[in-house]
């Protein structure tokens, strides 16, 4: 392999690493938002997921158990969010923000004991034979379990949302909880499930950070990735495959600008860091142009509290 191919491969692998935690968190948020619940607590849930995953892996000595701990802890945080917004009917925006702030603090508290230690990162599971193809084998078939899972989830969730009855109900609840309720669907229960799935995915994203990306715990290690995930869902207009595209684009821009710097490219890195958000704003403007486009693309009841009437 030539030098430039080696670097291209290395950069691509780093991009996959940078994109995967975003992909998990954003896919989870997508499902949550499809049910009409806005979860601004993603960042906090990711942090709790990260610290719990790390703790789990450290205590049991098994990284996979760590991953499960992370997912479970993220789900618990979502359950708390759900209890507040769905049962007690608090404002979703304020609650989400508090969950994030709470998560930052709680994860730091839990993590006090874990500063300065490392765990064995999750090992790669190369696909037999396929992974031996030069270049593409390494690029596509030599990853850890979570990378495969994240991509599989894109297809799985896409199928679920648009091709199954369950997905139809989820979308109905997100678009018009009143009608769904009148038809006899348990709106609150469905929203609970969507929210908990979102929390589980945020937890997985966090686990990816603390067990694979940088196998350590440090306070606030998500460094805003939860917010990027939220932007991604809007960028993707609530469609899983576009989340995949967006996550790889967001991750890609970060890595490419680092490589550009290494090669002495003279583009201000701040400009490149800004690009993904510019794209998000652009998408927002485009879909908000007319009512129909907005209705077509976003869950109509997003962020609104639903009070079931008998």
């Amino acid at each position, binding site marked *: 392999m030539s030098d430039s191919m*080696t*670097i291209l491969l*290395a*950069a691509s692998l*780093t991009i996959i*690493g*940078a994109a995967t*935690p975003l992909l998990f968190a954003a896919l989870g948020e997508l499902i949550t938002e499809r049910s009409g619940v806005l979860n601004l607590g993603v960042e906090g849930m990711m942090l709790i997921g990260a610290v719990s995953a790390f703790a789990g892996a450290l205590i049991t000595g098994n990284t996979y158990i760590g991953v499960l701990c992370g997912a479970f802890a993220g789900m618990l945080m979502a359950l708390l969010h759900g209890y507040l917004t769905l049962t007690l009917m608090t404002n979703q925006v304020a609650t989400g923000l508090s969950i994030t702030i709470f998560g930052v603090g709680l994860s*730091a508290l839990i*993590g*006090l004991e874990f*500063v*300065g*230690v*490392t765990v064995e*990162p999750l090992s790669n599971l190369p696909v037999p034979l396929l992974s031996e193809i030069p270049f593409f084998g390494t690029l596509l078939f030599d990853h850890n379990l979570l990378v495969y899972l994240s991509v599989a989830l894109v297809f799985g969730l896409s199928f679920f949302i648009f091709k199954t009855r369950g997905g139809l109900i989820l979308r109905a609840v997100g678009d018009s909880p009143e009608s769904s309720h009148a038809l006899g669907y348990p709106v609150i229960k469905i929203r609970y499930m969507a929210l908990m799935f979102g929390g589980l995915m945020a937890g997985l994203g966090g686990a990816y*950070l603390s067990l694979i*990306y*940088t*196998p*350590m715990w*440090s*306070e*606030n*290690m*998500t*460094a805003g*990735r939860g917010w990027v995930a939220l932007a991604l869902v809007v960028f993707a207009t609530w469609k899983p495959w576009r989340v995949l595209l967006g996550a790889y684009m967001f991750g890609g821009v*970060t*890595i490419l600008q*680092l*490589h550009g*710097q*290494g*090669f*002495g490219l*003279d583009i*201000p*890195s*701040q400009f490149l*860091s800004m690009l993904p958000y510019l794209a998000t704003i652009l998408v927002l403007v485009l879909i908000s142009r007319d009512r129909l486009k907005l209705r077509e693309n976003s869950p109509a009841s997003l962020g609104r509290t639903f009070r079931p009437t008998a």
Partner: protein
Amino acid sequence: MKHPFKKIVGIAATVAGLAIAGQSMAETKVGFVYVGPVGDHGWTYRHDIGRQAIEDKFGDQVKTTYVESVKEGPDAERVVRKMAASGHDLIFTTSFGFMNPTLKVAKKFPKVKFEHATGYKRVKNMSTFAGRFYEGRYVVGTAAGHMTKSNIIGYVASFPIPEVVRGINAVARSARAVNPDATVKVVWVNSWYDPGKEADAAKTLIDQGADIILQHTDSPAPLQVAEQRGVWGVGQASDMSSYAPNNQLTAIIDNWDQYYIERTQAVIDGNWKSGDTWGGIKSGMVEMAPWNDAVPADVVAAAEKVQKAIVDGSLHPFQGPVINQNGEQVIPAGEVLDDGALSGMNYYVQGVEGSLPK
């Protein structure tokens, strides 16, 4: 509860006693504003060790508080002001970006003493202090120059401020003093603390050929990547060998303990004066962690020789000739860049690749 009255009297007496004790001791309050979390295991962590040193030294005489993860910018001013207004006698703000907020608040609270790390603005009640970390980096650069096989030294940098540029230049100069083919490749992450991005930057540098990773960001992530990829890394601000037991070459350790204790003592004694302290290896503010066992003895000896020369003053990391990246001579042989020139350094020296972001 046979004698409830007795108990109440007892409590009242204790409270009164405490109050009197409190008055006579005139507790000194020392506050800290940190840019990162105390658990970063790097920059902020070391400042917090300094804070704990104050507590250990003065016991009940001094009360310390801190606010961590304060963003550089408008929010910093609010935090510093709140601290000043809540009865603190001495406030340490420990990041370059806290300079203007600290200055603003210092002017409004003339009785409170302020200590700002790594800045250059001073007033009657605001001192500055910093470590001559470039001395430590010069020592590291010597070893890096000997150890690199690819002749590419990777450098994960935070923001293009003189403090950081100085460190990069120090490494380039010392590495090239022992290995004229060595170059320093820099990647800026525009953050002091983002483990993921720091790790990505380290990976990028290694992918582009670097076999030694230095960092001027606060998390152990770049070092950890160095360990995973089997290249050398250098701990930042504190000994980070627990993150890279096999591949930490050494670490440059910040030691604020002595300075913090001295300044607190000065406030207690009432003889605190505004000034500028820039401590290096000699004063103990900059320490080197033990060298990795795998480093050849002659390399360690060369690095230690340089370290000794810096301490006894026979060597200055920026002694002439200093030649910038474009080949222009900044100062001729026989001269040394003074502190003013050092604290305003805004150019790369020869041996650093790429151009300095404006």
